[in-house]
């Protein structure tokens, strides 16, 4: 069956499609989350060095990975919107930003709670932590810029430019902080090379998958509201059954 993907790049068609797709991502996300938690807490053994505290990684690592990936995907969508003037990609970028900021926050929070028992400090100025913090700032800057611009077209394009500049800067910031850290001896953190148990890997992978599905579901839900708001003057929005009732 050939699906006309191009058709769905128009907000009109995508609105309906997104509505149908949300449960297909949300339900597996919830199920996989439970499975991941079960494996993480009941199957995976206690770590020899970190004891039970290591179990934080099942949420910390997926959150960190996703916060970085979401930024790149957001910048990618924003760039598409800027170059090809496709409104839906710009709306997707706007819809992704809050979730990305949320995962950056979760990553920082769980990192701090993991760091305290392991390194004895809530926060260290490590390259990874610092970059994650700056990533959160970049998300907040993107959201603040877009929400302070009235004209949606300008908001899309200005946000896109900022996201692209940010994505070029993240690696520069990461390496500069890393290098700065090696100069200031003491704060460097080595992850002790404990080989990961298979169940640990499974739990982390399943949690990562659950988070991905969650991100997709929540982004689709958010982009639906954005589409409605932006297309409020059009005929098809006024004919939707949820608007007519």
């Amino acid at each position, binding site marked *: 069956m050939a699906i006309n993907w191009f058709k769905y790049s128009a907000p009109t068609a995508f609105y309906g499609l997104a509505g149908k797709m949300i449960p297909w991502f949300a339900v597996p996300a919830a199920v996989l989350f439970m499975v991941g938690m079960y494996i993480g807490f009941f199957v995976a053994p206690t770590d020899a060095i970190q004891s039970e505290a290591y179990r934080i990684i099942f949420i910390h690592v997926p959150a960190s990975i996703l916060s970085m990936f979401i930024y790149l995907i957001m910048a990618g969508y924003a760039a598409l919107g800027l170059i090809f003037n496709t409104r839906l990609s710009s709306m997707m970028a706007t819809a992704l930003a809050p979730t990305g900021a949320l995962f950056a926050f979760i990553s920082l929070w769980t990192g701090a709670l993991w760091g305290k028992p392991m390194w004895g400090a809530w926060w260290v100025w490590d390259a990874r932590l610092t970059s994650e913090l*700056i990533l959160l*700032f*970049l998300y*907040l*800057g993107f959201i*603040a*810029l877009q929400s*302070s*611009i009235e*004209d949606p*077209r*300008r908001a899309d*394009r*200005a946000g896109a*430019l*900022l996201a692209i*500049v*940010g994505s*070029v*800067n993240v690696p*520069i*910031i990461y390496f*500069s*902080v890393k*290098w*700065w850290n090696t*100069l200031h001896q003491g704060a460097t953190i080595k992850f002790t090379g404990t080989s990961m148990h298979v169940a640990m890997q499974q739990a982390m992978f399943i949690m990562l998958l659950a988070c991905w599905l969650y991100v997709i579901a929540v982004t689709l839900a958010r982009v639906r509201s954005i589409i409605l708001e932006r297309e409020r003057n059009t005929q098809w929005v006024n004919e939707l059954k949820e608007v007519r009732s």
Partner: protein
Amino acid sequence: MTRCANATGAVTSKLSLFGLFGLVIRRDLLLAMRRRADVLTTLVFFVMVVSLFPLGVGPEMDMLRKMAPGVVWVAALLASMLSLGRMFSADYLDGTLEQMLLAPQSLSMLVLGKIVAHWMLSGLPLVLIAPVLGLQFDMPAQALWVLILVLLLGTPILSMIGAIGAALTLGLRGGGVLVSLLVLPLCIPVLIFGTGAVEAVNTGMTIVPHVALLGALLLLALVFTPWVTAQALRISME
């Protein structure tokens, strides 16, 4: 050579790319001469912020020496944020920016002219006053020279990155705070290498990698930021 024949019959010559670049710089400097208070405010702000630190953390010389480069850099960052709001807004409000967008030469070059003028009016004064502040913090002579060198390399980058933020937030309410939120995270590498070089000379290490990296950042910024700022201006003017 193309000539501009005007309605009054006089013949004038066509401006080259660099002629236009020079014109923008001369114009901004001339305007600043007529509005001297703006430049002085930034400078006074910088001096005040730096002077507040010893009062805040105590007059212990060892500690002051150690934190001097960081304090000077953070103050320079804040001071340049302060002057960013003015970079394009006056031209935006009186319509000159529209005319700049219509100039028959590359907009990036005009933007670069504005960035250079901004640096000469907000960055360069900070570089010149920094040694005096360094003495307040009892910095050794060698470290002072390095501080001047890295400030010379780093403050133009602040103006360039700042230009992107200023262009993106043009005409927005609360633009001044917003521009800091957008620009400050992007300036972190400059801060790191700028303070790193001074610390290196204090601990007897080589400053070469810091200075080289700052130089690389400067070149990178010089290549990309005028173009990005020009795009941001076009977006904001729509």
